[in-house]
């Protein structure tokens, strides 16, 4: 009897220690990004593009990378929304939910979800070679859309699966077709979950560097065409950190702070939107 009590006490202590260790590691990350980034941050960082000699410590900012990242992640998200809505609505509304096709699609996306982003980058590169594209915004958008497609699909699928079958029956009994039911009833009911899925995928897309390194390239100017290279924030951080000059490394800390703030804002917005749109749901 005593042995079991001692075992329980030991494990409770271990559990508390590991929880504290993990939480403190996570807090240390946020604090070190904040503490290192804030002193280096200034207005010209976010309003200017890199001027001559920027990577040697001269004037300029990373507006090119901020806009490039937003365009790239935005384009990829739009592409992924269209694709994943089609897939998810087909699987849940048109196909039978437990059909072979549904099972195959879910399995395939589960597997795709685990594929590393560098592989999407390499695959995006082979597509670009196939199409005769150079490194460009479009190439980056294709690679990132492929990267976020599985997570968006699976997240949307989880919420659309939860739509009660009575809603379908009610809609069909009023004479609506499957397409009308899907677009007006199912999407409406699952909207909070869909929005969360979209925002999380956008956040993943904006933060990923490995998939754009081959495909989007890097440039010092603001992207103005789909066929031109585009700078991205994660790569800007990576390059600035790689230089031996302290002032440029400082700017990498500031850029990391900007990226982290964008991600935190996306998280906050997704929570607020989820709360606001929940009232349209039939419970």
């Amino acid at each position: 009897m005593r042995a079991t009590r001692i075992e329980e006490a030991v494990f409770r202590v271990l559990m508390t220690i590991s929880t504290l260790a993990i939480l403190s590691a996570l807090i240390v990350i946020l604090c070190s990004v904040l503490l290192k980034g804030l002193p280096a941050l200034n207005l010209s960082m976010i309003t200017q593009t890199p001027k001559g000699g920027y990577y040697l410590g001269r004037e300029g900012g990373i507006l090119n990378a901020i806009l490039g990242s937003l365009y790239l992640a935005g384009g990829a998200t739009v592409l992924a929304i269209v694709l994943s809505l089609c897939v998810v609505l087909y699987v849940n509304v048109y196909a039978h939910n437990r059909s072979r096709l549904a099972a195959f699609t879910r399995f395939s996306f589960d597997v795709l979800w685990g594929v590393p982003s560098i592989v999407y980058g390499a695959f995006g590169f082979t597509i670009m070679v196939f199409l005769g594209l150079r490194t460009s915004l479009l190439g980056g958008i294709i690679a990132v859309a492929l990267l976020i497609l599985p997570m968006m699909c699976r997240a949307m699928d989880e919420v659309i699966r939860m739509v009660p079958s009575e809603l379908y029956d009610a809609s069909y009994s009023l004479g609506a077709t499957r397409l009308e039911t899907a677009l007006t009833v199912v999407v409406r009911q699952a909207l909070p979950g869909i929005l969360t899925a979209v925002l999380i995928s956008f956040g993943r897309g904006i933060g990923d560097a490995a998939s754009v390194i081959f495909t989007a390239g890097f440039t010092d100017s603001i992207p103005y065409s789909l066929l031109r290279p585009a700078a991205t924030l994660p790569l800007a951080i990576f390059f600035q950190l790689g230089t031996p000059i302290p002032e440029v490394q400082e700017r990498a800390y500031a850029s990391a702070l900007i990226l982290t703030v964008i991600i935190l804002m996306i998280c906050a917005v997704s929570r607020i939107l989820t709360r606001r749109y929940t009232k349209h749901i039939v419970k």
Partner: protein
Amino acid sequence: MRSVRLFADRLAGRLMLVLTVGSGLIVFVMAAGLYHRSRPILETRPLAELLFSQSWHPLRGEFGFFPFIMGTLWVTGVAVGIAVPLCLLTAVYLSEYAHRHVRAWTSPLIDVLAGIPSVVYGMWGVLFIVPLVKNHVAPFFGASSTGYSVMTGGIVLAVMVFPIIIHVSVEVLRSVPDPVREASLSLGATKWQTVKHVVLRRAMPGIIAAVVLGLSRAFGETMAVLMVAGNVARVPSSVFDPGYPLPALIANNYGEMLSIPLYDSALLLASLVLLLVVLVFNVISRIILMKVERSIQ
């Protein structure tokens, strides 16, 4: 009017079917595309030589992936060794012992950290973990290290997979129904005995899934590891040696790969290897999971 609506319904159905089947086949298209591009190097050299040769000299046309494969295995091994025990203890604590206020406060934090980009983790590794390993961890074990080592990469990766493993495990543990716990407690088991023999046992498949998800993220993680692991193309002989994982190799050489013959082919072969390993891993674990689930029901 009616026929138009029915036509739209059917047309949309066809279109969506095509897109669904198409995106279900992406995995195969990816594998085929990468295989097609890596054929030039596969035709000139036997696969065994590519995978097990230690000599990596692209300029001389020698492409041996063995140091990089070992680098990946070492770094992933260290990461999993650190992350799994810590995460499981934390997940059990959060789901079984912690007050619900603690849970409500930690879960958004963990979600936020899951969204932090890998470059930021890498930067944190350079600022924080590299000096830590160089000045404290390596001397503690009587080794000397520059700080850019397998150990550093493993620690950073472990922190990166914390959120995902904890999130999934807590969800799985919470899904074990309360009557199961109550039955065990009413038979006189202590709380810990209930957790150990009843809750963890029921939740095992989901926990395996959580670990596999973390493992596959660690396996292919690129930027963070690239920034801290040292990137020396040699098989590491201790955790304080630098390592050079496969993803880092691919990302690091994108610039010069088109100027050296067969280099692009070699790098795309490396990504094919990465893809296949992750695929085999995921498929096997999903099948195991399905079987375990069936045996529990």
